């Protein structure tokens, strides 16, 4: 096990380096530059040129990359071009809200998907099964921004039940209830997407398991159908689902970009959009690196979890 973890870590290093190089090139290829975004619009081209020179933006890309990498290795992610705050501090501020949103969305998405997926499989071809399939297609195919705007229109604008966005009511200090109210709509939007996809996986995986001989053995013991389904079948059905959940994490980060934008949720997704708009290279590089790390960690955690859940894997 220890050697396996070591090997995975060693593989992760070149992957991460590759990711940073790739991102660096893409970011620098984008038209426009940070100076134009934040200098006084009256500035002359000469002044802009001077500023670019001062920030090192005129140096060859390779030099810029190694300068960035050098500071990274010294634990320094640089300063944001738009707010002049240290990038590390900005990221730390923004990570919390995003993790909260993602975590809750994943939790509620699965809380809906697993029982409904099971029911849908045990009652295959029933009305409930068809209704579930319909719902899950809807959940998959409605874009997040559309569902988000629709939810805001209904619950915030028309019914005035929930806030339109943000993490708390400005100036209120943010009590628990206030924060929960702000969470409901974005979590609902993300969780709907997750549930839509996961219901299909849980159903398919459960159907695979329901025909297995060992369930007949379990029934022959006189166990109740509830135990047969939720103990004997479910644990087997969840094993392939672990992988699918692991693969969901990167998609969730992508989904959060849109959802955070729609709800003005002050997380990494919103930061990403803001950084792109202002050509904030240091922040963008840091976000990309962090995203890559999260994806790698999620994949790794998935593999570990998989081997914990499936006793047949541990031995090899």
């Amino acid at each position, binding site marked *: 096990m220890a050697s396996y973890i070591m090997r995975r870590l060693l593989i992760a290093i070149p992957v991460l380096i590759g990711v940073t190089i790739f991102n660096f090139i893409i970011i620098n290829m984008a038209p426009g530059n940070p100076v134009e975004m934040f200098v006084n619009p009256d500035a002359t081209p000469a002044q802009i040129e001077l500023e670019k020179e001062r920030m090192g933006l005129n140096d060859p890309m390779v030099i810029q990359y190694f300068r960035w990498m050098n500071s990274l290795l010294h634990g320094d992610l640089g300063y944001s071009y738009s707010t002049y705050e240290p990038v590390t501090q900005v990221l730390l501020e923004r990570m919390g809200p995003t993790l909260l949103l993602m975590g809750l969305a994943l939790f509620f998405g699965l809380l809906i998907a697993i029982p409904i997926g099971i029911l849908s499989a045990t009652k295959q071809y029933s009305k409930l099964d068809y209704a579930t399939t319909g719902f899950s297609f809807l959940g998959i195919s409605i874009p997040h921004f559309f569902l988000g705007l629709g939810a805001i229109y209904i619950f915030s604008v028309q019914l005035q039940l929930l806030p339109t966005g943000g993490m708390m009511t400005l100036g209120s200090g943010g009590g628990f209830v206030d924060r929960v109210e702000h969470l409901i709509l974005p979590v609902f939007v993300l969780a709907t997407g997750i549930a839509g996809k996961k219901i299909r996986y849980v159903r398919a995986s459960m159907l695979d398991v329901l025909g*297995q*001989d*060992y369930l*007949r*053995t*379990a*029934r*022959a*013991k*006189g*166990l*109740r159908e509830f135990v047969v389904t939720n103990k*004997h079948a479910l*644990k*087997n059905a969840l*094993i392939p689902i672990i992988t699918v959940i692991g693969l969901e994490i990167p998609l969730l980060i992508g989904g959060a970009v849109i959802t955070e934008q729609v709800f003005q949720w002050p997380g990494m997704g919103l930061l990403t959009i803001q950084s792109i708009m202002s050509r904030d290279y240091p922040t963008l590089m840091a976000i990309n690196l962090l995203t890559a790390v999260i994806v790698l960690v999620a994949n790794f955690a998935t593999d570990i979890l998989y081997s914990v*859940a*499936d*006793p*047949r894997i541990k*031995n090899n």
Partner: protein
Amino acid sequence: MKHLLEVVNLQTAFQSEKSEIIAVDEISFTLNAGETLGIVGESGCGKSITSLSIIGLLGKKGRVKKGNIYFDNEDLAQTSESDFRKIRGNQISMIFQEPMTSLNPVFTIGNQMIEGIKLHMKLSTKEARSYAIEMLEKVRIPRAEEVMKEYPHVLSGGMRQRVVIAMALACKPKLLIADEPTTALDVTIQAQILELMRNLKEESETAIMFITHDLGVIAEMADKVIVMYAGQIVEEADVFTLFKNPKHPYTQGLMASIPHIEYEEEERLSSIPGTVPTPQNMPKGCRFHTRCPYVTEQCKQERPDLFQINDTHKSRCWLVKTEKHNKE
């Protein structure tokens, strides 16, 4: 004496998309405590469906359409599912054909053993554990205590089948249904398992329904035998009579096709020319007439009943009826 199990005119049907398929029909037999009943017949003749009907595990699509299954004076065909669960795994147990897939891969042997014991014997987890170890030792599993903590995949097929047998016998069932318990195992392991079952039977008064398509195994294990063909019983006799004096042409065919050297099952049974009719296109008249060497016009038109030859011998064949008639 009242029989432990009395099946009367059992008919089991499956709902398919278009129509209803009658998988087994007119099944009647009795079984007493301590007796072993062998059931033989080609693949698809309804051996498993008969036993699944008795233990009430036909699934959503299947149901007992007609007939009665009296077990301990209770008609299992009429019993509610919740009452049936108290009998299943407790008074009636079943061992299935496939040892490799009949244990749940993600739970330990101990977990799967204890489950049924706790359910029916109302023991605490600790008591159930030590009882489970005792049962594993009884079916001669070495290192029983450690095996409790193992997952099924580390055990061989023979060992898994022993675990399944231990599980089935744990609650001291009055009736044990063994559906081809050794077919998937190699010959030496097969012999060990059969030996084990014989010993266990001698210790308790358990009645056994032993299903196989291997007549050799029947000769070794059974007291009386039912031969099934195309969803029906075609001959019933005690084991000596059946081997010495088989009356139904199908049984005779089965006997004749036992080779002296071991062949593959399929090869040996296919030496009766033709194939088994499917439930969807049962021939008119006797179900066996398409393959029968003694077929007459009557066989093609009229369905024979299961004629009583003597107290212990029955055969579903017009020839038997005629022969008996001529004698009288």
